[in-house]
């Protein structure tokens, strides 16, 4: 197959969990999930009331793709975030570069999105994933 697999090493996972935990604390979120655009859960932090993280990952990826389609209809490059409000839970979903998605699960009247922390977290995550992707692409190129 031409497209390299996504390989997450333990040290990268630790870095990602550290970033997610820090975001979890500044936003007072219940849980933070990092997923890829294909709908696979990469890493998470917090105590999620959702027992099936894979389902959350797939549905969030679908939601981002749908929103991307809506943006294109309007001539926008993309809508960078989606916010769902419920009676008890809110979900904030945002793109991290073009390969990942960050999902914040917030309890209503408790947690809120801290824009500066979110932006910083996304920058660091993007950097980790970019390096990961580059390393993998180099390995693939070397193989072929």
């Amino acid at each position, binding site marked *: *197959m*031409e*497209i*390299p*697999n*996504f*390989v*997450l*090493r*333990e040290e990268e*996972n*630790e870095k990602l969990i550290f970033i997610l935990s820090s975001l979890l604390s500044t936003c007072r979120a219940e849980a933070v999930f990092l997923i*890829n*655009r*294909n*709908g*696979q859960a*990469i*890493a998470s932090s917090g105590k999620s009331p959702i*027992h*099936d993280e*894979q*389902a959350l990952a*797939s*549905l969030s990826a*679908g939601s981002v*793709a749908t929103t991307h*389609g809506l943006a294109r209809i309007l001539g926008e490059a993309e809508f960078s975030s989606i916010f769902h409000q419920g009676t008890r839970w809110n979900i904030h979903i945002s793109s991290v570069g073009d390969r990942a998605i960050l999902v914040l699960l917030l309890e209503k009247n408790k947690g809120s999105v801290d824009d500066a922390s979110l932006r910083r977290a996304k920058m660091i995550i993007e950097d980790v994933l970019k390096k990961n992707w580059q390393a993998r692409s180099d390995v693939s190129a070397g193989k072929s």
Partner: protein
Amino acid sequence: MSFINYANREINCKIVYYGPGLAGKTTNITFIYDSVNPKSKGKLISLNTEMDRTLFFDFLPLDLGNIGGFKTRFHLYTVPGQVFYEASRKLILKGADGVVFVADSHPDRMDANIEAMRDLKENLKEYGYEIEKIPYALQLNKRDLSPLIPLDSLVRELKIANEPVFEAVATKGTGVPETLKAVAKQVLTVLKQDLL
């Protein structure tokens, strides 16, 4: 594109069931879901539209063993078969590690089979895949129908290269596990080459 996670020693692979509307993709998935040990599977998620359903779930097949100390988790998806859900089909196909094409054996559905096959090839190409190179199996479903498209006609129209072909009656589970095992085996072979 599999997701290999060294932190939890797990490999995540995505298998997509593709085919024309009402060919039995959902029946395949629900049969597998019901056969899997409840402890090793996630929830069966169903996204309903007016005409069709998109289903997915993930599971850890216990009988496939480990690859280099990694557990393998399979994520099974169906696509909505109706022609007008093309955008959804394309989206679900993204990142697929293996594909099963479920064909309908009813004589009236031959054109729909051919159109869905053309659609699959085009969508894969857009993601940079070639159907001849990815793990793939062809399932000829509804073999209990009467009238029925003869086996050799279906194979002639739909078989691409040397992919495994299975006759199936998905409502009874006939040919369903065999099809999944065939494509899963190919996915694991690709992974082993990549990992070991």
